[in-house]
Each structure stands twice: as C-alpha cells, then as structure tokens.
C-alpha cells in the first residue's frame, strides 16, 4: 500500500517553522510514505560497530525500515550487510538477534551461502532453469560505509558519501565518541520498546530539556557550556563541557558519577543522525542507540555500550557501573526522557501544533547554529522531513 495523495493533502503544514502539526505523529497512513521517502531513501543508517561482531562468522540481525537485514564479519575481515533472505524462495536465513556461523544455510532447500554472501551450494541445480548461474544468486548486499568501526548502510545508490552526508561538524565529534580511534569493546545492551511514534522519540531523545531533569538538579549537575550545531540535512551535534561537582551529596555512592576521562573526552557529546539515531558520550559512557520504528506505533531502541581497548580493568568496571545505572530505560538520568516519550505521544492525540519556543529568533527561519539548551535544534530535521514527505508549507 502506498500513501494516497489525499493523506498527503490532509496535513496542512504551518507557515511558522517552529510549529509542527501534531497529527504528523498520529496519522498511521504516513508510515508507508516515510519508508519510501526516508528509510529507503538517500540516508545512512548505523547498523553495527565492529566491536559487536569482532570475529569471523559473528553476525547481528537488524531492521532497516521494515526490511530484515543482518551484518556479518567475513572470513576476509570485511563486514557486510545483507537482506535477511535466501535468494531462492525468500526464507529468512538468520533467526536470532546475534550469533556466529561458519556459513548461512537455508533450511528450506539447503542453499548455502558463504560469510561473504556468495552462493556456494544449491542441491539439484542441474534441474534448475537453463540460465541459472550461482554467481547471480549471492545474498542481496546493501551499500555500506565504515567510520571508525561503525558501519552504516543505505538503500540508495544516490546517497552521498558518508563524510559528505554528515559533514565535519557531525563526524568529528562522532569520532571522539567512538573513542577517537574506533578501537572499542562491546560491554552490553539494554533493549526497550517505547510507546510512541518514531518521530516523537527522535524529537526528544537527542534534545534534553534541562527542566525535565530533576536528577540533574539533585546531583548539582546542570549541563554546562557548549554548542549545538545543526546540519542542513537534519543531523544534530551537541558538544558541551560538563560541570561536575567534586562531591555529590545526593547519593550514598557518588562514584557512579566519576569522570575518569580520556584524552578524547570533551565532557559530553550528544549526536543525532537523521532520521532517528542518537549517539552519546556522557562522562565515561560510550553509547549508540540503534532505533527501529515498529511501524507508525512504537519504537524499539537498542542501547549498545562500549569500553575502549586500552582501558584497564578498573576503567572497564567503572564504565559498566556508570552505563548500567545512569542511562537506558532504567537509568538515573535518562528514565525521565523515557517517560516523557509516551506522554508526548498521548498528548499528540489532540488538535493543533507542537510548538518549539526556546531559542526561536525568527519564526520563519531554520536556524543551523543554536544555543546548547535551545529547542530549535530540531527544526532542521523537521524541515528535511517535511521536504522529503512532500508537505507544502502554508503561506505566512
């Protein structure tokens, strides 16, 4: 099913750039168009870091839009991303979220694929169609680019090269967030489903309304100085110096807030890549939030946490304690974000617009450099969304 023009016309986009129609979160018919225009369009989506599949044969399943995919570490050391389907009759090849295999065998007719995606065996092929050639039946590979061990995939041949797509203002802090050199070790996952439309998630997970965070106030930890940089194509980069008190009176065990730091640290980094992914480095927590919309309702978020290969045992232990207790769906400082997602979703089932205010200087412009705690960092993403979806902006 593709979206009807009627559904498109039903949304009248406000003239003011800081106004977003609430129905855009709630109109289920938009999802098919979002898949086509955004998730299967000219965007890069992070799929896996090498640290998650460090050995040949390691694989990780994921989704891109509604397409099931998996990333696999080949015998040649390369990491590739394939659609999760046998090229014969379409059976899915990988049924677990991760694992290790020597090859991928389809249980249906025993077609066998190498870790590099080549079809290496298919019983009874002498009875196949006259032009059948194994070379034509390798796994369906997605276009992939790597950045310091993090592999991005895109469905389009036209997507600009990764660095060009992100721009230096985004990829430079991403490099620092990936430990500077990408030599990371996986220390674990926290996975959760949030009860909101995917756009409500990405509108609020990257941007942190400081007023929401009672925890910040109790910890005497009020964010700090820094900048928020927005790219024209909707990526967002917060880079800030955290002001951390020497002693935290609010907690019995203040050590979970220690900042042991490394030469690649610069306080706090929060990145958001269009359309949906958040990456953070707070204190000593290195975190990528792989996010999968479950259609128009709900978004599944996989928080992946990392240590650095050069960490000593004490540092790894510290990262584990800090990451487990501060972030994610139970975290001291991030649960408040989690709780607000579903409340926003409920609130969007009302009439009118969601309105951004803090930092708005011109209600008809799209700001690209905004204050660290301004809401306006979201506006470029909404503008990109509006353009890709083909909604016309009303005249002022």
């Amino acid at each position, binding site marked *: 099913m593709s979206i009807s023009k009627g559904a498109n016309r039903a949304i009248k986009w406000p003239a003011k750039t800081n106004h977003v129609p609430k129905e855009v979160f709630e109109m289920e018919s938009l999802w098919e168009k979002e898949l086509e225009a955004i998730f299967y369009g000219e965007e890069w989506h992070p799929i896996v870091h090498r640290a998650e599949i460090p050995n040949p044969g390691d694989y990780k399943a994921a989704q891109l839009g509604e397409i099931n995919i998996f990333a696999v570490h080949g015998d040649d050391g390369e990491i590739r991303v394939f659609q999760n389907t046998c090229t014969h009759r379409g059976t899915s090849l990988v049924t677990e979220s991760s694992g290790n295999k020597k090859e991928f065998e389809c249980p249906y007719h025993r077609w066998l694929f190498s870790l590099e995606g080549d079809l290496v065996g298919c019983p009874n092929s002498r009875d196949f169609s006259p032009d059948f050639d194994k070379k034509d039946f390798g796994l369906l590979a997605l276009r992939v680019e790597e950045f310091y061990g993090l592999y991005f995939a895109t469905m389009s041949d036209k997507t600009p090269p990764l660095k060009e797509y992100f721009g230096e203002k985004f990829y430079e802090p991403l490099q620092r967030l990936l430990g500077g050199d990408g030599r990371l070790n996986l220390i674990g996952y926290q996975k959760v*489903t949030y009860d909101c439309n995917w756009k409500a998630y990405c509108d609020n997970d990257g941007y942190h309304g400081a007023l929401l965070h009672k925890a910040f106030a109790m910890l005497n930890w009020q964010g700090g100085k820094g900048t928020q940089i927005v790219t024209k194509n909707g990526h967002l980069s917060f880079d800030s110096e955290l002001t951390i008190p020497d002693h935290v009176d609010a907690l019995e065990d203040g050590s979970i807030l220690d900042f042991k730091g490394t030469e690649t640290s610069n306080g706090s980094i929060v990145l958001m890549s269009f359309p949906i992914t958040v990456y953070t480095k707070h204190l000593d927590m290195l975190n990528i939030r792989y996010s999968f919309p479950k259609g128009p309702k709900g978004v599944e978020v996989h928080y992946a946490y990392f240590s650095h290969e050069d960490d000593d045992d004490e540092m790894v232990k510290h990262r584990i304690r800090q990451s487990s207790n501060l972030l994610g769906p139970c975290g001291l400082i991030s649960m408040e974000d989690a709780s607000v997602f579903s409340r926003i979703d409920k609130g969007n089932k009302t009439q009118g617009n969601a309105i951004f205010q803090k930092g708005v200087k011109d209600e008809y412009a799209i700001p690209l450099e905004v204050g660290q705690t301004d809401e306006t960092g979201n506006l470029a993403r909404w503008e990109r969304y509006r353009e890709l979806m083909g909604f016309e902006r009303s005249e002022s």
Partner: protein
Amino acid sequence: MRGISAANRELIEDLNSEYISALNDFNMDNWLACFTQQGQYILTSEENIRRGLPIAFMLDDCYARLKDRVKQVMEIQGDSTEHYQMRHFTQLISATESETGVIQTNFNFSIYYTPRDTNQTETLCVGKYEDTIAIKDGEARFQKRVAIVDTNVLPRYVAYPV
C-alpha cells in the same frame, strides 16, 4: 552442595514473599531490608548473560547503591515517572546449601504491570532470580539477588526494581 532443611526452605520462601510484597506494595524501605549490609541487586537480560556481557539494567553492587536505588525511586524520579502497579508471581525452582551455610536459590518470576492511565494489565517481564542468601539469627537475607529477564526487549521503561 546439598539440599536444604524444611526450616530453611520456609525462611527463604518468607524472604521471597517479603521481597515481592515490598515491591507490589511500593515499600522501598522493606525492599532494602531484604538485603544484608553486603547486599547486591542486579537486573539484567538473558541475552547479556548468555553472551557474557556485563551491562545490566540496574547494577547495585554494594549496599550504598541499594540505598541510592531507594532514593532514586522515592525522591529523584518524582513526578516525571508515571506510576504503575506491579504484581509478582514467583516459583521456587531450586535451593542448595553450601558447607558454609550459604544458600543458593532459583525462582522463576512473571511480573505484570497496570498503569493508572490505561488501567489495563500487561506483562512487564518474565525470567528467573538467581539468589545468594545468608541465614543469620533465624532470618534470611539476600547477599545477592540477580533478576535475569527472558524479556530481552523490555516493553517500557522500568522505574522500579523487580
């Protein structure tokens, strides 16, 4: 390792009942009282355990962290968290006692939750507790309770220990 006496079995069943009552009744002081002064509480996923990954959803690896968990629930989360009623169902699966008197137990659990806005009941998570229990002066207390959820993808944010 050997099986445990009927008397000790009763003590650990009582401890588990105190524990789940504390959470179902939203009484975090009673929850804390279920642990020894060296107590630890960990909430993690079956996937992390299976893959040897140490990250947890909650990692209270010392008594000070347990006290901070109480503070987080009672004071810090405050009105930004929507309260939900929990109901725990548990089942003792195994209990063994070491020569030093430390008891290891396993309980299965299933936990339902009912938020006050929808008033509909759903499954929060299903899994097992792996416990280390000390018995002293006729009372059992957790030295360590590890809650491992089969529900590797939680259905919502989890505001309270399980």
